[in-house]
Each structure stands twice: as C-alpha cells, then as structure tokens.
C-alpha cells in the first residue's frame, strides 16, 4: 500500500493551494470551473491509505496531527464524492451569476475545513478547521445577498461561533486532563471518563456539537441557511459539512464507557429532534425548507443512536452512526441537487427525473433495497428494542411522509417552459450523485464481514422496512386528501422567539450605553478614579 504521509498531506494541501491561488485574479476568474477537482486527492487518500499512521506537521513543540481512522475515512470518502459531484454541478450553476469568485473562495474554504475536520487528530487542528468550515459555509449561505440570506448567515455564524466557543472551553479543559503535553483527540477522549470536570466537559461538548448538528432548539439556523444557500452549496452543507458534528461527537465522547446519564440526555434530545423535524417539516411548502427539516430529523436520529451507544457503552455504535451518516450524506446531497435540476426541467421531461428523485427520497424513510433500509438495519442493534425502537419506526413513517411532501413541493417548482431540459452539465453531476447514493451504501454494507449483520434480503426485514414506508404513504394520501389547511409555521419556527429576544437586547444595550456615557463625564471619571484608589488601597490593606 502507499505511504499514508504524502497522500494525507496532498489531500489537505491541494484544496488549500487552490484557495491560495485565488489571491491571483486570473486564477480566481477560472476557479469556479475547477471546483470538482479539489476533493479528488482526499478521495484518493481514502481509497489508498490503509493504516491510520498519523501525519504530523510542525516541530515537536506544538504540532498539528492528521490521521485517517475508520470513521473519518468512511465519512471523508462519501463526503469527497459529494463534494466532487456538487463541485461539478456548481460550475454550470454559477454561469452568469454574480459573485462567482467569492463563491469559489468560500467553497474552497469550506471544503478545506471539511476535509481538515475529518482528518484532524488533535484538538487544535480540529478547532482550526471547524472554524474554517464555519466561515466558508457562512460565505456560501450569503451568496445570493438577499435580506433573507444575510439573516440566515447571521444566525448561522452566530450559533456557529457560540458552538465553537463552547467547544473551545471543552478543549481547554480536556487539554488540562491529558497527561503530558499532547493535544491528541484520542488521548483526550481516553482521559475524559476520569476527568474531574467530566460532566462539565461532556455538557459543553454536547451543547457545542449539538448546535452544529441542529439539535432542537438549536436547529433554527438549518431551515433558513439551507433555503437561502444555492443548491450545490446546500447539498454540501447539509450532506457533508454538518457531519463534522457527528464525527466530533464520536471522536470526543467516550463511547466505550457507559455514561448512562449523558447518554440518556443525548438520546432523548436526538429522538425529540427526529420527530420535531418531521412535524414542523410537514407544514412547509418550499422543497429546500422541507429538506432542511428532514435534516433536522435525520441528524437528531443519528445523535440518538450515539446517545443509545453511550448508555450502553458500546463502542460499535460509532460505526453504525457513521454508516447512517454516510448514507445521509449522499442522499441529502442528491436531493438538494435535484431541486436545481427540476427547476430547469419542463413538465414534459419531468417524469424520468422525478422518479429517481422520489425513490431516493423515500429511500431515506427506509424503502427496501435502498441505502436507507440498509442504514436502518445497521442502527437497529444500537437502538435496542425499547421505546427508542418505536420512536425510530415512527420517525421512519414520518420521514416517508416528509419526503413525499418534498416531492409534492418539488413538482410545483418545474420550469414554466414545457420543453425545457436541464443542461447536461447540470444533469450529469446530479445523476451521478443519485447513482452513487444508491450504490455506495451497498458497497459499504457488503464490506462488512458476513454474519455481523442480518441479511437485508430476508423477507421479515424487507417487510419491517416496507411497513413504515407504506404507512407513511397512506398517511400522506390521507393528509393531502382531507386535511385542507395545515397550520403555517414560519421557517425556522422558534427563531421568532429569538427575534423577540433580539428586540429586548437593544434596550439593554441602550441602558449600558447611557451608563457608559455618564461615566465618561469628566467629574464622574474623576470620582471613579478616587473611589478606585481607595478601593484598591483598601483591598491591599486587607491582606
């Protein structure tokens, strides 16, 4: 096998180099056409690197460490595929639109951050690339520069930075616990169960990654951001970028050790999000928003799986969650890309495109023989047989419902020109994503040694997977037929509450400003100087 070192380095340096090349105006002009090439080295690294020997950058004092462990490799592989196809999709998509250069820069920033996070093996590089990912993603969200986009970007970056600061505290605390002076994530996770600050660190990690993963009530950024972002950007953000939080949870939380309290909290929050996303999503009309709520639901489900793993202290949960995530990466990516394709297609050619979209969409709910069904089989073990399993089934029903709602919404967005067809350069990347999303889960599933998992073609499993889908379809039909008016809930639901809070904040700010203005009067400052002198003198005297 090939040495890991140069491949890992190349995987990171290639997009970074493309990013730096953007400083040169000529390169910036052409960059949008070459976005698809940036993740190829990363994909190659996934294919060819077998061991997880780390790449260490920098002198011995404070180095950045990168390594390709199995969860990282799995996610990176599918994410790289999505980045490649979405990159190919983006270049025609951008044709003739403003801000192409900025899009390319933000795209490459987010891409570098994404690859870096998946590869990072120490906390500093993890934090660094997470920040890069956030900044790049924010740039992608505000691409269209509408008021809606700015608002979405502001909410995204605000929550993102809040999450990162929480994580930063957690990292600082973790760094203190690691024996020696290393900052490796593995050591940190190993040291966590015995740390004196264990509960605090775990709460910070859950809160931080939870915000990134869109757990209720921190999901408010998701619907707005995905709706505002251009289709290819929404695809990579909802597919690849958001998985950084899942990877973070898996890497930092000690899944091998049973931590029932934290696990219960995590599982409950995840399952609640899984249902909440469905319920709110059903009230939405715009396809991208529906997809975003589906993401809320799906991410909640994955978090729940991790939470169940923590309750049990079962280390294999990690891989199950990663498998589910990998499927979601590709499916969600394909669905977001289809939004753009359908919008460019006339009614006449609609059916050949809508059919695969519908299959993939319903696949997310667990349609047999799709990746979704496989993923459900994989996570079945960790979820166990209790209430969680019931909720999971409910979620599958709901997801089907939601996906049908999405398809229904999608149909209304077709091009007004009957004869229109999507440009080949738009069509083929979408088709390949769709194909990949059907094939890759199978490939991954088959790579698991025989006997570890039940046979997906067994009839009882087929029925178990089909039953929620059918139920969902029936429910959808009932809902559409008889329930005329679903309540309309604004996109980002509880963000409205946030808005109200935001109205109170200026009043406080004004009060502080007035107080500060008073303090800036000469005699007030003089009096405070004297008072300060006396106070400081008194404290020194008190010694």
């Amino acid at each position, binding site marked *: 096998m090939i040495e890991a070192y140069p491949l890992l380095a190349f995987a990171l340096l290639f997009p970074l180099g493309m990013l730096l090349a953007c400083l040169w105006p000529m390169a910036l002009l052409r960059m949008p056409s070459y976005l698809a090439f940036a993740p190829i080295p990363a994909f190659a690294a996934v294919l060819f690197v077998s061991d997880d020997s780390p790449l260490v950058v920098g002198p011995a004092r404070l180095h950045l460490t990168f390594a390709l462990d199995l969860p990282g490799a799995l996610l990176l592989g599918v994410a790289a595929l999505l980045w490649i196809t979405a990159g190919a999709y983006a270049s025609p998509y951008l044709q003739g639109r403003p801000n192409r250069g900025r899009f390319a820069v933000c795209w490459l920033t987010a891409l570098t951050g994404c690859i870096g996070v998946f590869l990072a093996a120490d906390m500093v590089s993890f934090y660094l690339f997470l920040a890069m990912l956030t900044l790049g993603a924010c740039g992608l969200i505000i691409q269209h520069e509408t008021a809606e986009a700015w608002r979405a970007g502001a909410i995204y970056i605000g929550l993102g930075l809040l999450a990162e600061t929480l994580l930063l505290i957690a990292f600082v605390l973790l760094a203190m616990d690691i024996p020696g002076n290393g900052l490796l994530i593995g050591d940190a996770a190993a040291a966590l169960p015995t740390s004196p600050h264990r509960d605090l660190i775990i709460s910070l990690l859950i809160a931080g990654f939870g915000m990134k993963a869109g757990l209720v009530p921190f999901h408010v950024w998701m619907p707005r951001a995905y709706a505002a972002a251009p289709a290819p950007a929404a695809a990579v953000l909802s597919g690849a970028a958001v998985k950084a939080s899942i990877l973070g949870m898996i890497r930092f939380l000690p899944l091998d050790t049973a931590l029932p309290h934290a696990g219960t909290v995590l599982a409950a929050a995840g399952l609640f999000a899984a249902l909440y996303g469905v319920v709110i999503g059903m009230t939405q009309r715009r396809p991208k928003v529906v997809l975003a709520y589906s993401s809320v639901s799906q991410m909640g489900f994955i978090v729940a799986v991790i939470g169940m793993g923590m309750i049990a202290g079962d280390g294999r949960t990690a891989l199950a969650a990663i498998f589910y995530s990998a499927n979601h990466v590709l499916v969600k990516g394909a669905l977001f890309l289809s939004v753009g394709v359908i919008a460019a297609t006339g009614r006449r050619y609609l059916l050949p495109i809508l059919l695969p979209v519908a299959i993939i969409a319903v696949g997310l709910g667990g349609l047999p023989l799709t990746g979704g069904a496989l993923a459900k089989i994989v996570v079945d073990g960790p979820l166990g047989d209790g209430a969680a399993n019931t909720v999971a089934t409910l979620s599958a029903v709901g997801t089907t419902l939601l996906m049908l709602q999405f398809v229904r919404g999608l149909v209304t967005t077709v091009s007004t020109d009957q004869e229109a067809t999507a440009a080949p350069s738009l069509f083929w990347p979408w088709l390949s994503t769709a194909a990949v999303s059907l094939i890759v889960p199978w490939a991954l599933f088959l790579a698991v040694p025989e006997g570890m998992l039940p046979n997906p073609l067994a009839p009882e499993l087929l029925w178990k997977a089909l039953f929620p889908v059918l139920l969902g379809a029936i429910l959808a039909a009932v809902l559409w037929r008889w329930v005329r008016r679903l309540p309309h809930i604004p996109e980002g639901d509880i963000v409205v509450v946030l808005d109200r809070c935001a109205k109170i904040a200026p009043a406080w700010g004004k009060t502080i400003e007035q107080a500060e203005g008073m303090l800036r009067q000469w*005699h*007030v400052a*003089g*009096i405070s100087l*004297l*008072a300060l002198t*006396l106070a400081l*003198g008194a404290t020194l005297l008190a010694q």
Partner: protein
Amino acid sequence: MSIASVFDVALVALILAIGASTILVRKAFAAVVMFVVYGLLLSIAWVRLHAVDVALTEAAIGGGMTGLLLLGAVARSRSVNVGGPWIGRPARLATCALCALVVAGLAIAMLHPPEVIPTLAPTVMESLPQSGLGNPVAGVLFVFRALDTLLEKVVLLLALLGVWSLAPDRAWGGMPGLHVYARSDPTLIFLAQLLPPVGIVFGIYMCWVGAKDPGGAFQGGTVLAAMWLLVIVAGLQKAPAIGRLWLRGLLVAGPVLFLAIGLAGWVFADAFLAYPAGYAKPLIVAVEAALTLSIAVALGMLAAGPPERAQQQ
C-alpha cells in the same frame, strides 16, 4: 516651640489657605494671581526644607514662568465665553470626601516613615569628587542620573513641538503670537533696556555657579528666557519665526552636546554617559552652558505659544 516652628506652621497654613483659595475663588484671574503667590510661598517652603536648588527652580519655573503662561491665557480667554456647567453639590461633596480620604491615606504614609530612613546622601557625597562638582544636586542631575536629564530635554523639545503643532497650517514656520501682549509703553521699554544686561549676567552666573553651589542650567536658563520675553513684550524685538535655522540650532545645541559627550563617554570612559576621569568637570560645565542656552530658548518659545502669523520675508 521655637520661632522656626512657628514660622513653619504659619507658612504651611498660608500655603494651604492660598492653595484652597486658588481652587475656590470664582474669577480665573484672581485664581492665577493666587497661584503665583502660591508658587512663591512654596519656594520659601523649599528653602525651609534645605533645598535651595529646588527653591530657585520652583520660583523661576513653577511660580514665574507658569504664572506668566496662565496670566497670558486668562488675559486672552477673557473675551470668549468660558465655562461649562458647574458640577452639582452632591458630586462636589462626594469628591471632597474622597479627596479627604486620599489625603488621609497619604498623611498616614507620611506619618509612618521607615525605622531607618534610607538615604543616598552619603553615597552621593562619596562619589561626587569623581565628577569634580561641588553641588550634589548638579552631580545627580548630570552624572549619576544623566539619562533622566537628557530625556527631560527631549521632553521639553517635544512639548515645544506639541505647542507649535497647534498652529494653523498657514502659520507654520511663522512667528509666535506673543505680539498680542506687546505694547510700546515707554516705561516698559525702559525696563526692557535696563534689566536684560543685568539679567543676562545673572543667568550666566547662575549657570556657572551651579557646578558647586545652588543654581544651574535650569535656573539660569529661566532667567535668560525671562529677559528675552521681556524684550519681546516691550516690542524691542520680534519673536523669532519658528522656522529659523538659528532657533532650531539653539534649541537642540544642548541636548546634542550632551548626547555627543555621552556617546564619547562610550569610547573614552567605557560607558554611555560616563565621563573620562579628570575631564568630568569641564565637560559637565560645557554641557551645562549649552543646555542653559537651549533651555532659555525652549522656555521662551513655550511661553510665546504657537506661531500665529506667517513669516514675512
């Protein structure tokens, strides 16, 4: 209680009374007059504290020159509507109380001197012969803490440039606005003709004597500056335009010589600002002489204010 202590107590009471009235009196002009008196009383206090060098400096600069500046400022600001709102009584009372507490703290510190009072006086007297000087204060200023003195000259120059920087752009390089007070009164002209020769001799004497008795560059320079200002105010001479090369040269002559001798000390005496053995006194006297000139010009120009008229060639 000896006569001396009665005198001291009376002096302190007077100083405090005058000081308080400087602050409390309503009219700015009266306050400045009070302040000049305060400066003079302080210099008596300095004599009582056996610091004649400081007394001279305080009288010349602290009272005299500062008083002159303030008087000029008050005279000029009379026409404009000066003043903002007075501060309310509660705030004043609070300030008063807090000030009293600060004073109490300081007083406690002053009332509790260390058991063994540390002093550098013997050390200074022991090392003074090496410099050839007789006045220990001059020794500290020009030998032991020469770096402070050098930097302080730079401070003076910077302050002067700062004052000049307040000129309008078009007046840069022109003459300071001292002419505002200039009046060709025959009596004043008489004084300006009679006094400067005496004053110049006196200033030079002060500088010269500073090496061994109280006096020195600052005091001498101040006297020279006062004479110069007198001549200008009497209208016998115009204030020089600030762009004049000779003026700039005089301003930096002292510091430059000081610095040069300091650098030479690096070569000849093995340390920056050290004097070669045996040459210390003549070098210091030379530095003092140059500094006296520079200080005189700098103080005079500081008092003259920023340029106001463009140079007329």
